[in-house]
């Protein structure tokens, strides 16, 4: 087997470089070019991290759900690995979304957390479910069993989520959360532009991280199966005449 000691490739290096350049541009745009908000002042700049990470969180978890279904229906190892990679990056982004949201909420709503908010509570429950998904992934045991367990949790999370959303929505109707910042047309031009840049930069980072995580998971799988192959060859060799360590000792 070809010796591999990294998970980089031309594509990921280009992506990585683009992420670095993009992040620098985003910081400059976010801090110096985009104007401060009339009501929220500097806190508004949090949306350049918050909104993109929220959107990519949902894309990640939809990817996990699709990957889970593909494993259950087609036994596709590729899709199973995609689901696992997307879940990990999704949890990272989801944590970032919750963190930036509550940091932003403190000066704006005067509270870190608002229980009456549908999106907040739903996102937290999604976060907890996906942490459960990752803990199922790390349970060990045969690979196909782990994949099946995780896939069922992935499908279950996707099926329950609309109900969680409904229940929280009916639970308290007074929401503090903003309606979609992207579509309501109230954003300043430069703010909107920076937000779009943020979406792209975080998207590039998302794909960069997913590619690496996917390759690591894939290589881990290869190592495990090559260990098995080698053990099989060794056991077979023991059966050949004169090759047995026992006979040598005699």
């Amino acid at each position, binding site marked *: 087997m070809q010796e591999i000691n990294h998970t980089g490739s031309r594509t990921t290096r280009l992506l990585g470089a683009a992420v670095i350049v993009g992040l620098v541009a985003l910081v400059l745009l976010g801090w110096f070019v985009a104007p401060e908000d009339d009501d929220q002042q500097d806190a508004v700049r949090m949306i350049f991290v918050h909104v993109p990470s929220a959107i990519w969180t949902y894309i990640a978890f939809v990817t996990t759900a699709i990957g889970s279904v593909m494993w259950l229906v087609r036994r596709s190892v590729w899709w199973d690995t995609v689901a696992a990679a997307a879940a990990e990056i999704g949890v990272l982004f989801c944590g970032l979304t919750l963190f930036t949201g509550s940091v932003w909420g403190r000066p704006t709503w005067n509270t870190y957390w608002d229980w009456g908010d549908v999106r907040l509570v739903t996102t937290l429950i999604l976060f907890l479910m996906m942490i459960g998904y990752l803990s*199922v992934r790390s349970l060990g045991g045969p690979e196909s069993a782990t994949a*099946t*367990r995780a896939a*069922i949790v992935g499908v*279950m999370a996707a099926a*329950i989520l609309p*109900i*969680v959303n409904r229940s929280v929505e009916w639970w308290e109707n007074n929401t503090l959360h903003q309606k979609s910042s992207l579509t309501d047309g109230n954003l300043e031009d430069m703010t909107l532009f920076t937000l779009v840049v943020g979406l792209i930069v975080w998207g590039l980072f998302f794909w960069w991280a997913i590619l690496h995580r996917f390759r690591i998971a894939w290589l881990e799988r290869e190592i495990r199966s090559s260990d098995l192959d080698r053990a099989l060859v060794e056991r077979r060799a023991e059966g050949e005449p004169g090759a047995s360590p026992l006979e040598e000792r005699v």
Partner: protein
Amino acid sequence: MLADIRLVAAKDLRIEWRSRVTLSQVVPFALLVLVLFGFALDANRPVLDAATSGLYWVTVLFVGVMSVQRATAIETTDGARRALLLAGVEPAAVFLGKAVAVALQLLFVEVVLVGGVIVLFDASIESLPLLTATCLVASVGIAAAGTLLGALVAGVRARETVLPILLLPVLAPVLIGATRAFDDALGTVAVDGWAWLGLLAGFGAINTVLGALAYGVLLEET
């Protein structure tokens, strides 16, 4: 199919009846949790009154986790799962049978707990039909989701710790819906409790279908 469901449910309930785990451990545990909530909040009587339905359902969720763990343990010891597979019973029937058994045990504990909140928390029942319906529908949802996730972690060593992590977030809608319906049934908050029953029913239906579909795969592969 129906006969198989009844067979599996009767088997689990018989084991439960003979070992008396629900009676001698789960019910006392549930009452203990109520007492602890009382200690934590009793200094402030209005808070306890307002929180009664929430505390009731949090207790039921804990009991749900315990019951599911117990139902899973029955199958994992002595390779009973494999025997169940070899018996030629349809996996969906095994799932439904086990879920029915868990739901019935939950209902039993819920009845005791209603007595507990009436005595300890001074709750009064305003609408018995709503209260009964909520208990029935919520138990089905908890039992279905729990039985599926219980089977999912059955084969692994860390199952006692993993099960609550998986199950409790999934049961969040049950906690919200059942608490609201109970608020109405106990007359603590003016909400339309029957509307919340719809949500609980939806949750139960989705989990029952998911479980019936996925149980076979889990039994065979894990």
